[in-house]
């Protein structure tokens, strides 16, 4: 397993109940397709994130499937709505099923 990659998350400090707010997430990841060869002619092993899921208290808010066309350090921005305070859980899963999980609290004003 690779060392845990660096993740950047941005969720507003205070959100209003039932009102959409923007969530931004970025992960430091090479998104290696497995189709490339290095200067010695050896195949570069695949290392790619396949799915991204954002859950609020267990409920899926946003889901994405990544392919080889997605560039390194993928960045996502999407909108979410909540009606109570809780926690957003972000999960990135790579080709071996290794997952990187990060959490961010949501405070409802």
């Amino acid at each position, binding site marked *: 397993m690779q060392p845990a990659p*660096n993740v*950047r998350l*941005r969720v507003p400090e205070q959100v209003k109940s039932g009102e959409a707010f923007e969530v*931004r997430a*970025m992960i*430091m990841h*090479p*998104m290696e397709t497995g189709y490339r060869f290095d200067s010695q002619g050896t195949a570069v092993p695949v290392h790619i994130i396949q799915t991204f899921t954002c859950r609020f208290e267990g409920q899926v808010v946003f889901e994405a499937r990544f392919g080889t066309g997605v*560039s*390194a*350090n993928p*960045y996502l921005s999407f909108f979410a709505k909540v009606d109570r305070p809780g926690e957003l859980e972000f999960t990135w899963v790579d080709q071996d099923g290794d997952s990187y999980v990060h959490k961010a609290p949501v405070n409802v004003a």
Partner: protein
Amino acid sequence: MRRFAVATAAITVAVAAAALAAPRSGSSYLAPDLKALQADDFRNPGLLWVEQGRKLWSTPPSAAAKACAGCHDEAAMRGVAARYPAYDKGARRVVNLEQRINLCRTGRQHAPALAYESRDLVALTAFVSRQSLGMPVAVRVDGPAAASFARGRAAYHQRIGQLDLSCADCHQRSEGRRLHGETISQGQINGFPTYRQLWEGAASTHRMFAWCNAAVRAEPRPAGSQDYVDLELYVRWRGQGLPVETPAVRK
């Protein structure tokens, strides 16, 4: 006749620009989308390295050693990157920021030096440079740094490689002209370490130098070599007064 006059005027302007050439940051040549990406304090992918650097800054390299943050206040780092490369009394030569960080690691933290261009060294350099965001580049090229500066200047004007080009041929004399659908910039380095989309990562000045050398089909110098530090000092001096923009974003 009129066309001739316009052409003459254009040449006059071009000559004047070459002679004066006020420092112009590389970001001013960018397309609006890339400029916006660099300016965004979340979306700029170079900030992943800055964040990584922040973690390393507060993590001791070994149980016996202090972290960088154990001695240095983060706020005290403001303005440091704007002064580098600078003459170091202990090393008795001009060192750049990467080497200064490594001197601290080996000398004070008793930790092995980080490999040049390794993710950790680029990250730490990006973190320290980020603290000087917006401050004018102000390197000293007099006194003990003068010899290094002179070597850097000579290297800048030395024609090299199969294409027989010097740095100045493109970035001074041909600045503003077009090449492969791009505008030739002044080659300023006020945004380093820079996130380059081509490399899908943040990179040091020396990696860019090596890339540029290879582009004119010359043999690149090793990253971290004194040749490149001298050149870095000279190129930094060319951009004296430009704001630090770390981490800049380039194609």
